[in-house]
């Protein structure tokens, strides 16, 4: 939000209003209404049943796993689960929608009125955890469409129906957000929750999680402005950029006295801009009608409300799902703070970065070092390097065990802390080398041989009578200068604690 602030001031406080429509592909073995497999890269049209191809005489049969996934997700987002929900048809013509309609839940979705709590690091130094909420209007089950590949050369579109009929959860988030950063943080938290639940793998680049942003601007207190829908956003980073661009664009339009048009725009990652989408024939009218082939979907509160003699494979029980919910990210963060005594902002980053928490806990298992100090290494040295080279935690050339070894060596005085940082850099560049190896090769091991240290200290003391005199007269700070000289002699490999002791002894008076 920091780059919008000066603009807001200029434009008499026009602020952005952002709502999100998210389609999460349900992680299941088969499709929502057919027994076709669900799999990412399969040969075109190899996972299509007669129903998926919309051949006459076929009927939808609901997949229980998809219902459970929707209920689980609804519970994790504090929704009210509708015990009775309904299916509808949403009609429009497009080549990748063979039936000419999509089965969705427009009237009564399976879950409503939830809330997503999310955080991001804000404040001046981006080190403060800022917590926000966004209302979840509803979660509904619906079919995915097939995929269209546009072949402009031959002026045709190639259709692959593998994805047609895959189960989706559509989550509608109210326009409670005001900028790209908030939307990105909300989606990241949702991604973590869905992954923890196992209901959706949440990979945006593979299309498992698709986000469309509804963006408008207005002056606070006044009615909402005209909104545009922004599509074609393939990552969380682009989501923030697209929204911020669109807010600025709309503010610019308003500033110039123009009006914002209610339209759909596509985000172009290359230029960082949103451009109007062609092929949008005015306002669509989907002619919603109830799906005549599906009775209402009933889910039961608990075992007590089950009708007698019912087959357990034919019912979804909310209580059972509630009891089976895994640990959610917010709880995980709390546990980390409790267990290790680390700061909330660190715990936030640990959970936020894929694999980082596991990495940290692995290191903690293998070292006696204090958690807060280990965090420093993980956040600064490790994460810093990863970010600089745009790598993920799983790609780190230094394994948790290797880092733990280095930290242990530092703890036991084998290497100084600045030495350890040097060792880390060398280890990063030469994968597989252990800390001990690097220390030996680079001769970075701390000198703690008493005799050697004494000799060098004596040499320095003998050759700097003025400084020694100053120390004896009470100016203890000069000790640091002598320490510096000793370190230079030893090329930084002197154990600072030992050296200080020896120097103090020697300058106390009377020599050694």
């Amino acid at each position, binding site marked *: 939000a920091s780059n919008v602030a000066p603009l807001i001031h200029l434009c008499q406080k026009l602020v952005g209003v952002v709502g999100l429509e998210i389609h999460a592909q349900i992680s*299941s*073995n*088969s499709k929502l209404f*057919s*027994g*076709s*497999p669900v799999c990412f890269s399969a*040969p*075109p*049209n*190899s*996972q*299509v*049943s*007669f129903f*998926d*191809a919309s051949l006459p005489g076929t009927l939808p*049969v*609901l*997949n*229980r*796993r*998809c*219902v459970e996934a929707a209920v689980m997700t609804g519970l994790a987002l504090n929704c009210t689960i509708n015990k009775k929900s*309904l299916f509808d048809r949403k*009609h429009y*013509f*497009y*080549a990748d929608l063979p039936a000419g309609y999509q089965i969705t839940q427009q009237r009564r979705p399976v879950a409503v009125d939830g809330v997503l709590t999310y955080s991001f690091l804000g404040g001046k130094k981006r080190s403060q955890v800022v917590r926000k909420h966004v209302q979840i209007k509803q979660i509904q089950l619906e079919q995915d469409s097939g995929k*269209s*590949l*546009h*072949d*402009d050369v031959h*002026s*045709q*579109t*190639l*259709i*692959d*129906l593998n994805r047609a009929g895959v189960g989706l959860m559509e989550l509608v988030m109210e326009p409670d957000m005001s900028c790209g950063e908030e939307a990105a943080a909300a989606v990241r938290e949702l991604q973590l929750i869905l992954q923890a639940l196992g209901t959706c793998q949440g990979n945006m680049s593979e299309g498992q999680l698709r986000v469309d942003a509804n963006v408008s601007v207005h002056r606070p207190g006044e009615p909402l402005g005209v909104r545009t829908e922004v599509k074609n956003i393939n990552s969380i980073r682009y989501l923030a950029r697209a929204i911020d661009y669109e807010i600025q664009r709309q503010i610019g339009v308003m500033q110039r006295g123009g009006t914002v048009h209610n339209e759909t725009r596509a985000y172009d990652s290359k230029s960082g801009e949103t451009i109007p989408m062609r*092929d949008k*024939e005015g306002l669509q*009218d989907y*002619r919603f*009608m*109830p*799906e*005549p*082939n*599906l*009775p*209402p*979907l*009933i889910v039961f509160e608990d075992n007590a409300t089950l009708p007698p003699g019912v087959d357990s*494979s*034919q*019912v*979804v029980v909310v209580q059972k799902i509630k009891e089976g919910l895994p640990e959610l990210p917010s709880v995980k963060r709390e546990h980390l703070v409790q267990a290790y005594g680390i700061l909330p902002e660190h715990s936030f980053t640990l959970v936020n970065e894929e694999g980082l928490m596991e990495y940290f806990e692995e290191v903690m298992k293998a070292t006696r070092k204090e958690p807060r100090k280990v965090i420093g290494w993980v956040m600064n040295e490790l994460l810093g390097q990863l970010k600089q080279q745009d790598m993920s935690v799983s790609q780190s050339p230094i394994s948790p065990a290797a880092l733990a070894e280095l930290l242990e060596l530092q703890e036991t005085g084998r290497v100084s802390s600045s030495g350890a940082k040097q060792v880390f850099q060398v280890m990063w560049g030469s994968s597989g080398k252990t800390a001990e190896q690097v220390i030996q090769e680079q001769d970075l091991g701390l000198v703690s041989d008493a005799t050697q240290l004494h000799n060098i200290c004596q040499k320095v003391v003998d050759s700097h009578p003025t400084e020694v005199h100053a120390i004896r007269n009470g100016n203890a700070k000069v000790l640091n200068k002598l320490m510096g000289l000793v370190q230079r002699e030893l090329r930084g490999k002197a154990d600072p604690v030992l050296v200080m002791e020896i120097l103090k002894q020697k300058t106390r008076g009377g020599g050694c």
Partner: protein
Amino acid sequence: MSAFRLTGLCSCRGVSLKVIESSCNLSRNRRGCLQRPLLNGTRLFSSHSLNSKVNLNIIPADLVDKLERLALVDFRTKEGLACLEKAIRFADQLHLVDTSGVEPMDSVLEDRALYLRNDTETEGDSAEELLKLAKNTVEEYFVAPPGNIPLPKREERTAMLKHSEF
């Protein structure tokens, strides 16, 4: 505008207006209500009927156009439009029924349990059979035009379909 379903009325040629009796829901008993609606019988099909708002020219042309685009049906001629009007008026009879306090029925299956399938792969290996159905395929893909082809304007359509069977 009352909700109407025209799925069977594409080429309106003297379509009988006696259909859909059982859709009327008079009694609380949902099952087997197949009686004729109890209306003031003689006024059923007269053109001065219940809804004086509804007369032959009342459906705006752009609404008809919009319907044609959305449903890809064609009302083509004056007769087609008249058929549409009659169908609307017929369906409007539903307004005479007092449905206060009655839950709408949208599926005759509403008292059936919705069958839930186990999440296993049981089908989907039909690429060859399905692709055979298409005139045009390219390397196992179905081929479609580059985008939705916009429906030609009414005048153009009339010209195009002048010699059609209907």
